[in-house]
């Protein structure tokens, strides 16, 4: 019988930490050990619980119109969820906007179900409203597991969004002069013991883009990409990015299109 006891995790982290300090040459073995641990976790990734919850929410009639989200058009036609996440963000003619999965789900909630989505946008993380949105995004992302990332960025608005995202990536501000690039703009760097993907490269963008939404073992929380970005900005000492806003979609477009060709591994699992 195996379970996830907290002591086990702590021991593992300690082992990882000690090895990292002894010699850099040993770090390969450490990473291998962590990889093995991650593999064991993947076998029982609690993200599946959120996926199931999201699927239920997707298929259940809700909102003033008492309609499900099953006819939502995520870019591959109404009702097509399989593979949709891997092709997002993209331009949608009906809203005349480039949207990621999460902002598109909001659109469907508003138009199909008649839901007042402002409440959902404004709600803080860990609120019941955000839990619903994260579960829905987790479900939708899971339907693209194993699908190749193919963010088109051929429509002029998609192209413009990519360029805005790239510019945002390098935009410094706040008391610490931080931009996304401060941490995610070099190869092989880490914060404390946390490895940082170098996002302007295909490999780095793929490491980030294909692994969120992800279950975070340390906090027991399921995080969507919007939540991931919001917490990056928090640590950058920036104001809070508004859920589904163009800033978040632009950065997603930059990441997704840079990651093109990589394989979605969602929902993921993190330490």
């Amino acid at each position, binding site marked *: 019988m195996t379970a996830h006891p907290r002591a086990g995790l702590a021991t593992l982290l300690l082992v990882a930490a000690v090895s990292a300090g002894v010699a850099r040459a040993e770090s390969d073995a450490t990473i291998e050990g962590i990889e093995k641990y991650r593999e064991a976790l993947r076998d029982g990734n*609690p993200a599946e*619980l959120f996926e199931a919850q999201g699927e239920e929410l997707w298929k259940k009639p809700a909102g003033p119109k008492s309609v499900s989200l099953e006819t939502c058009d995520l870019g591959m036609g109404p009702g097509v969820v399989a593979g949709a996440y891997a092709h997002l963000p993209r331009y949608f003619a009906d809203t005349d906007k480039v949207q990621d999965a999460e902002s598109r789900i909001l659109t469907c909630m508003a138009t199909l179900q008649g839901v007042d989505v402002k409440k959902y946008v404004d709600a803080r993380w860990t609120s019941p409203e955000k839990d619903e949105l994260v579960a829905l995004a987790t479900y939708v992302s899971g339907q693209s597991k194993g699908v190749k990332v193919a963010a088109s960025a051929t429509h002029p608005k998609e192209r413009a969004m990519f360029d805005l995202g790239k510019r945002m990536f390098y935009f410094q501000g706040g008391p610490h002069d931080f931009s996304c690039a401060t941490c995610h703009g070099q190869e092989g760097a880490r914060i404390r013991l946390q490895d940082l993907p170098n996002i302007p490269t295909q490999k780095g963008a793929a490491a980030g883009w294909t692994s969120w939404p992800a279950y975070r073992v340390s906090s027991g929380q399921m995080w969507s990409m919007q939540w991931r970005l919001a917490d990056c900005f928090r640590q950058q000492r920036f104001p809070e990015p508004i859920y589904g806003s163009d800033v978040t979609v632009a950065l997603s477009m930059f990441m997704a299109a840079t990651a093109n060709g990589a394989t979605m591994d969602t929902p993921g699992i993190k330490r």
Partner: protein
Amino acid sequence: MGNPMKIRATAKDGVTEVKVLMSHEMETGFRKDSSGNPIPAWFIAEVTAKLDGKDVMKAQWGPSISKNPYLSFKIKGGAAGGKVAITWVDSKGDSRTDQATIA
């Protein structure tokens, strides 16, 4: 009542491997909320597995098990089409049972 579990069970050469994901907060009782008040302990205390209606495992758990726990174990016996049922009872007396068909 709790949220549904995810149960997978596969039989091979007379052994059934069961993998269960349970949705539970698993509060240790040692944490404090943002205003400094202790959050009361709340965890799964007992887990029972049944194979085709017969008890095959009972486990006593405590607050050291993680949130949303994952449990895997093997049972001697069981065949495709059989039923594995898992029940948990938590420290508040709440319980939940889910069942899966062996593949």
